[in-house]
């Protein structure tokens, strides 16, 4: 297993993403960060703190479970559904979705459907720690911590202190 990002790399990527969100949206006045279960949630929390420090304002933070919106419900075991909690409304706001790895794009497709059922944001943007390519849908990220060219045979593992007790991004070959 090869480590491609260590904890300092992750911290730098998060700080840069927070700056980019602030720059792109000219502040963070109407931004709401929504972390996708599981590892998008601590990432959204950390981006939110950086952004709050930059903008000197509170950034609302939501959580989203996309399990009920998957397109492979019949073909794979059903995971436990986590809570979706969005503070106040997404109506007319700028929602920044946060996830750890962008791969086929199917998780994000599901997240967009879930958000649509909760209201009509002014815009939705996507922040990911790692973009490993191999999209199966026309989806791209607005903020990328690290572009990581991979083969489909490789596995990308993100570990975060809050969940895994260690921090970093690894890549390994599978058979």
């Amino acid at each position, binding site marked *: 297993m090869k480590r491609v990002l260590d904890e300092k790399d992750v911290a730098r990527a998060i700080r840069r993403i927070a700056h980019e969100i602030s720059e792109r949206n000219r502040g963070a006045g109407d931004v709401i960060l929504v972390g996708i279960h599981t590892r998008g949630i601590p990432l959204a929390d950390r981006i939110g703190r950086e952004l709050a420090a930059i903008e000197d304002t509170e950034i609302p933070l939501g959580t989203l479970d996309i399990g009920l919106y998957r397109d492979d419900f019949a073909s794979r075991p059903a995971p*436990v*559904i986590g809570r979706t909690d969005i503070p106040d409304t997404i109506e007319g706001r700028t929602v920044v979705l946060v996830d750890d790895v962008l791969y086929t794009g199917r998780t994000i497709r599901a997240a967009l459907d879930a958000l649509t059922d909760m209201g009509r944001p002014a815009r939705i943007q996507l922040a990911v720690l790692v973009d490993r390519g191999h999209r199966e849908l026309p989806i791209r990220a607005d903020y990328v911590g690290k572009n990581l060219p991979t083969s489909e045979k490789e596995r990308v593992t993100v570990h975060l202190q809050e969940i895994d007790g260690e921090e970093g991004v690894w890549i390994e070959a599978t058979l």
Partner: protein
Amino acid sequence: MNHLLTTQDLDRDHLTMLLDTADGMVSLLERDIAKAPTLRGKTVATMFFEPSTRTKLSFDKAAKALSADVMSFTASSSSLTKGESLKDTVLTVQALGVDLMVVRHGATGAPWRVAEWVDVPVVNAGDGAHQHPTQALLDSLTLRQHFGTLDGVKIGIVGDIRHSRVARSNVFAFATLGADVTLIAPPTLLPVANSEWPVHTTSELDDALTGLDAVYLLRVQSERGGASVFPSLGEYRARFGLTAERFKRLKPDAVVLHPGPMIRGVEIDAVVADDPRSLVLEQVTNGVAARMAVLYHLLGGEADV
């Protein structure tokens, strides 16, 4: 998990999986658009061979919130009245094309027979005085929301235990989740063979009352013979009803549950039923979420537990 027939064979991991997913479903139900497309194209048949309002409506709502189609069957308006057998009835419904059957029946074990006959998942929505597993899930969910855990929570189940499928289901779910369960009933309303149950028993509500974190009241089931074992409903209330006076002697943070339908003035006084510490309406709302979790995991396969 292929069927949900009894709480007796659900281990802690399975119960926790269902309750965790049910919590996620609660958050879906709190939204303005309380509907997700998960079970689109699936058909759930609710087959009630015995009257029910809340359970049937609750399963209906649960299936629809996940976008399943619902076919309803009630015995009184069916070909059963023309003499069709249970087996032919369920095979006919299966041949119409259903993906899951919810079965309530007055005879103990009927959902097990149905599960042998059909090749879709079966959910027991109450069989005689035997089991009612989704009730136990919604009660466990309600208690877990309130206390954070069931570990060490002292629950007293009061009343007509003998005729109660709710009690038979709850005892095992509560105990598996770590609660300390006491059955409180006159000896005549205790089950004949309960020595294997993971519970304490007593016939003195007044002694047990002050130690409880949750009081779970049962309805006196007149239709199953529950009212015939003591002289009058007034006498029942005097010894086993949660009266306003007894309610005052509960721990200040203790809560009250009831599976409904409640008979105010018998097992529960009206002021108790309407107190904020009565979780009766939370139970009803959680019933939808718990049943959504069951439909989701039975139709979608189970997570790694």
